[in-house]
């Protein structure tokens, strides 16, 4: 240490009040302990669940599993059709729900002049978040499937799920917008930016991490959903014949297939599907983050 050479401690006060005296604050230690405890519980549970799913699922995965559709005659099982359907449902749902959700959040935070309207909308959005998915399923079936005549189709499923994940995206975006400092807004408006320009160039980039959080949670809801999709998107497992036509056809996601496997007590296949699902979620999440980075104008350095 450089200060070894320096004068020995002379002032009494310097000893008693020395900045080297690491004082132990009991409440701090307790709270730190609590933080570590909770984090380790979460992380252990997390690792446990993932580990279990992977250990049981990976042996099930084979080329055939990944590249064929189920065939009872041949007695083979494969999920490629469901993988494709999952991608369809996720992409279409996000294409519908993200603009709507982000738009609603922008309206609530930037346009609505406070007061009752905002509170009502916030309240309804939060209510929407607590409705069990089967109700969405039944509603989607009745409204999109029957009334609009879309039947069991990927589109019906995606529309239904869009309503379901709307609260997640809206509320998280709204929170993110709230945290953007007021000074950014006045800075932009003060030099004559139109509101929309200000939103586009300052608010959305700043709020991007929050929006991505919402989208990622929404992706989780979409891929993990079974009840709502069973009644709306159906359970078709064949590969699409044409790209856009598939949207109007029945298509079961991986989770639907997983659910049906559960019915038949085919746990191995179920865990295999779960593993594939996790990999897909990881990929989509990564993609979502990547795309959001392109939006972000913030200079990331120094």
């Amino acid at each position, binding site marked *: 240490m450089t200060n070894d050479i320096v004068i020995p401690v002379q002032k009494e006060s310097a000893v008693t009040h020395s900045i080297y005296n690491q004082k132990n604050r009991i409440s701090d230690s307790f709270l730190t302990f609590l933080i*570590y405890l909770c*984090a380790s519980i979460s992380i252990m549970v997390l690792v446990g669940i993932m580990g279990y799913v992977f250990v049981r699922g990976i042996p099930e995965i084979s080329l055939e599993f990944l590249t064929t559709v189920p065939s009872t005659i041949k007695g083979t099982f494969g999920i490629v059709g469901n993988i494709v359907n999952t991608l369809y449902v996720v992409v279409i749902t996000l294409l519908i729900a993200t603009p*709507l959700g982000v738009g609603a959040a922008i309206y609530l935070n930037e346009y609505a002049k406070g007061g009752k309207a905002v509170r009502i909308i916030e309240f309804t959005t*939060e209510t929407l978040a607590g409705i069990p998915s089967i109700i969405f399923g039944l509603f989607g079936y009745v409204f999109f499937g029957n009334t609009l005549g879309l039947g069991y189709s990927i589109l019906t499923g995606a529309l239904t799920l869009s309503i379901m994940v*709307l609260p997640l995206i809206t*509320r*998280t975006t709204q929170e993110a917008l709230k945290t953007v400092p007021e000074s950014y807004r006045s800075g932009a408006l003060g030099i004559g930016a139109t509101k929309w320009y200000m939103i586009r160039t300052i608010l959305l980039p700043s709020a991007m991490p929050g929006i991505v959080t919402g989208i990622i949670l929404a992706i*989780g809801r979409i891929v993990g959903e*079974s009840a709502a999709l069973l009644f709306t998107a159906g359970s078709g497992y064949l590969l699409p014949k044409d790209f856009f036509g598939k949207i109007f056809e029945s298509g079961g996601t991986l989770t639907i297939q997983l*659910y049906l496997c559960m019915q038949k007590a085919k746990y191995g296949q179920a865990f295999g599907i779960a593993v594939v699902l996790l990999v897909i979620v990881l990929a989509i999440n990564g993609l979502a983050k990547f795309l959001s980075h392109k939006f972000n104008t913030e200079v990331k350095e120094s």
Partner: protein
Amino acid sequence: MRPKSYSIFGGHGSKSGVEHAAEVIFTVCGFFAVLAVASITLYMIISGTPALFKVGILDILFGTIWMPAAATPSFGILYVILTSIIGTALAILIGVPIGVMTAVFLAEVAPERLTNIVRPAVELLAGIPSVIYGLLGILILNPLMYKIELKIFAGSTTHQFTGGANLISAVLVLALMILPTVINISESALRAVPQHLRSASLALGATKIQTIFSAVLPAAKSGIITAIVLGTGRAIGEAMAISLVSGSSVNMPLPFNSVRFLTTAIVSEMSYSAGLHKQVLFTIGLVLFAFIMLINITLNNLLKKGEESHDK
């Protein structure tokens, strides 16, 4: 006077079309949520009220016997309501603190490298289908619970043994399932707290922990409340997983009883039911809906009150 073209008055569309379009679009988006809730509400009321009158409101809400498919059906859901209230409340009491603390850990305490591993994992957790949670519950949690159950009720003749499928299992699974929502939203709220507030607190001689709890958490309050509200929504709306681990028999919500939640009641019977039974299931949906509204109002009142007091 300057030439007219320089006038600050908007006049003919100098508030550009884009600007107007943007405002209109956002407004439409904003009211879309209301529209969605309104139509779903309408749908539930239309489907759910007939049974209320056919069976009788009191018989449904305060009856304790659920035998929908019997020759003389009975549609009492009191225990189911109580289970939902107690179960959800407990799950929130366990899940929310763990979730928020984990978020604090990820945003404030953990080294960046650890965060970068854990965060995507938490996000993955959100994508695991609830059926899998249920299956894991049956395979891992329930046997554990059963061991405890056998110890506690050894020799009991009145207790119906459930194999570990009980209220506690359901609460634990629910608490686990809301973690991703609570952790992710809280974490991004914490990260959005401006750095200068941390500097200000540290410069006053606050420890890191004091800074987190006295300055950062209060500043992130609004986001954390949202996390709690959305997490609560997830807990109330979840059915698939808990129907597997809770036993799903209609009983008093005691820790080691097999219990049924409102959502489970709807999900597991909806697809096979017919006639009056089905209508009653919609009535349960309606009850659940009222229940959600009530919780939201309570949460809003409890949590958001403090927020407004110092904002003038």
